[in-house]
């Protein structure tokens, strides 16, 4: 039991930190443009596939650096020549633009790498067991993922709060006109933030790709969870996104390891099972099976009882 809790906590924190790598960029972009970037998870997927392709040629470590830079560059181009142009048509058009972009990126990835999973492997240098908890060997690669995510989180936090660039970015989020008056190129700041945000998503893709499955449906599978994170955390709140990332990471990891169903609980105290139909399904479903829908249930509940999210300040 203690073993399960320890391992699940580690995995949950790791998953949460990966979510936060993406959610942080998404939140920054949302605060800046007032638009949720529907294609954010697609940049994560691009990161994974670029990482896979580049590591095939020059190895994992160069790919670890080059892939996020490339994806961030694509992100900047998207902002400069796509979003900035669509901005004149209003927020709905902007959201739909990113929606179309997600669609196109998924199709393009399928066109180039196919629908099956790519053979993206953990680099040999990290393919060993870091330590043993009770009887489980914990892979070093997962520790590497965790350390990378925490390091980037710390760096991002430091840049945003301690440097001049961070100051300008923070000011641009809330008072873009005033910042422009002071002589800063606000559109360029926006482009930079968009590029860094998508680049961070790509970092998550590069490091998560070997551990999870690198496949063309990975964006569609993760995208909605990412929105749950930023909405539950409170739109535009970085702290909220951090909290929600960890919460959802932990909840989902613990849920998949609990093999308990209504039948086990009520059946144990002597309640007869229903004959058939929907009730029969619900009766036998285990917590592990409903793990994929827990985030969405959480989203709906949060929006009913606390519409601004955990740490959201105001309505956008």
């Amino acid at each position, binding site marked *: 039991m203690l073993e399960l809790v320890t391992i699940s906590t580690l995995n949950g924190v790791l998953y949460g930190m990966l979510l936060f790598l993406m959610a942080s960029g998404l939140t920054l972009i949302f605060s800046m443009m007032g638009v949720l970037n529907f294609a954010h998870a697609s940049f994560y997927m691009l990161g994974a596939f670029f990482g896979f392709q580049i590591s095939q040629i020059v190895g994992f470590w160069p790919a670890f650096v080059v892939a996020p830079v490339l994806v961030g560059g694509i992100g900047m181009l998207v902002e400069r020549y796509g979003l900035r142009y669509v901005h004149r048509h209003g927020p709905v058009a902007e959201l*739909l633009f990113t929606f179309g972009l997600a669609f196109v990126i998924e199709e393009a990835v*399928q066109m180039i790498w196919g629908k099956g999973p790519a053979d993206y492997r953990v680099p040999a240098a990290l393919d060993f067991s870091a330590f043993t908890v009770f009887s489980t060997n914990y892979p070093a690669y997962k520790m590497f993922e965790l350390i990378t995510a925490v390091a980037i989180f710390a760096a991002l936090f430091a840049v945003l709060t301690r440097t001049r660039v961070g100051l300008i970015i923070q000011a641009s989020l809330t008072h873009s006109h005033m910042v422009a008056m002071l002589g800063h190129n606000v559109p360029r700041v926006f482009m930079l933030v968009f590029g860094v945000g998508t680049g961070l998503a790509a970092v998550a893709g590069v490091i998560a790709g070997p551990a999870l499955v690198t496949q063309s449906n990975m964006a569609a599978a993760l995208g*909605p969870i990412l929105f749950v994170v930023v909405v539950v955390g409170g739109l535009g709140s970085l702290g909220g996104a951090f909290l929600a990332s960890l919460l959802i990471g932990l909840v989902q990891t613990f849920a998949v390891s609990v093999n308990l169903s209504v039948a086990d609980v009520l059946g144990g105290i002597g309640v007869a099972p229903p004959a058939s139909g929907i009730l*029969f399904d619900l009766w036998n479903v285990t917590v592990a099976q409903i793990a994929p829908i827990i985030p969405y249930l959480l989203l709906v509940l949060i929006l009913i009882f606390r519409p601004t999210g955990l740490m959201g300040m105001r309505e956008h």
Partner: protein
Amino acid sequence: MTEIASTVANAPARAGLSAAGSAAVVRLAAPWIALTVAFAILPAIFTSGSALTVLSLMGIMIVFALSYNMLLGETGLLSFGHAVYYGLGGFLAVHAMNTVIHDRLPVPLPVIPMVGGFSGLLFGIIFGSVSTRRAGTVFAMISLGLGELVASSSLILRGFFGGEEGVSTNRTKLLHIFGLNFGPQIEVYYLIAGWCVLSMMAMYALTRTPFGRMCNAVRENPERAQFVGYNPRVVRFIAFSLAGLFAGIAGGLAAVNFELVNSAEVGAAQSGLVLLAAYIGGIGSFIGPVIGAVLVTWLEVMLSDVTDVWQLYFGLLFIGMVMFAPNGIAGLLMMHAPLWQARAYGSMLRLALAYLVALAPALVLLAGIILTIEMTYRLSVKAFAGTTMFVFRLALDAASPMPWVAAAMLIAGGFWLFRMTWPLVGAAWHDAFTLARATGRTR
């Protein structure tokens, strides 16, 4: 808001008009009669079996896209989970059919879409009460979350959703009326066409009611709608529930048409498709989603025959529309309405010529893009089929540099020429509108 004011101001005048004669009634009924006739004679024009299938799909999609437009176009609610009501309508319709068959109930097939409609309405009321408290991005996110919730649940509740293979039925086993057993596709087509015309009339009528106007007001400015005395939340909720009703009807029609409903019908892809259809057609007018539904269904069938990567073209078309024609195809057509009203036929001809001139390089650019995409696809995923291929019936070797150079030149040259010729369109447009305004006949 000005629109509402003018409606109110015109009301007495309108009443007087309809009392005065039947001219207004004829004008009101004419498009619907024309539509009914069109639906009736279409199978006689497109006689092949596959055409009938496509026409049936179009009918279903028209209802679905129009129901979506009640949200996005009329009320300003961007939903990423509209397929939930379509799919659940379909599932309940298919279960209703199976129950009718099993218990030998005296229920004919043509009323089955109503079951879908009522289920859509029911789920619209349930989920709408949760999600319509807020508009904008938050609404979009809740609709996405609810969509994922239902889509994920559909794989868990296997008894109701039938797991991966779905739930199937047999439409010919229901009570036969008027000697119809609905075995042949043509009978199903007319069933779909009938429901399509009815739903279209109902949805159009709804846009003409004070409620329809309030939906527009809530879309434009919820705060002012509240000052007029309407609760935007309630207006959104009613619009959402009614959109669920019509989506459910579309789902019921799909259940009748395919005799099979599976969990993909409630999924994100289906929600995305209806969004694409409505938006490409144009969400600003009633006719827009109809155009979009017809075009998207046709493209889906036609493009998937021609190329494996048709969904990529589809996505690119959508992005192009969002960037350059945010009001859709209907919006592009409507832009020319003032010229038509001014009867400025000369300048319309000149504008058409300018369009033709600009169209040529645009097609060249498009050809270059298509060539690049097809060759990339051939070299990557379809590499097993060899590198020699046919694009536009032209044999070429994707592994040799020549076609790539040609594609690059087509793209660069087409783009450059398009940039050169587009000012012609701008000039023709400017002149035409200056002339049209001078006639004083434009509105």
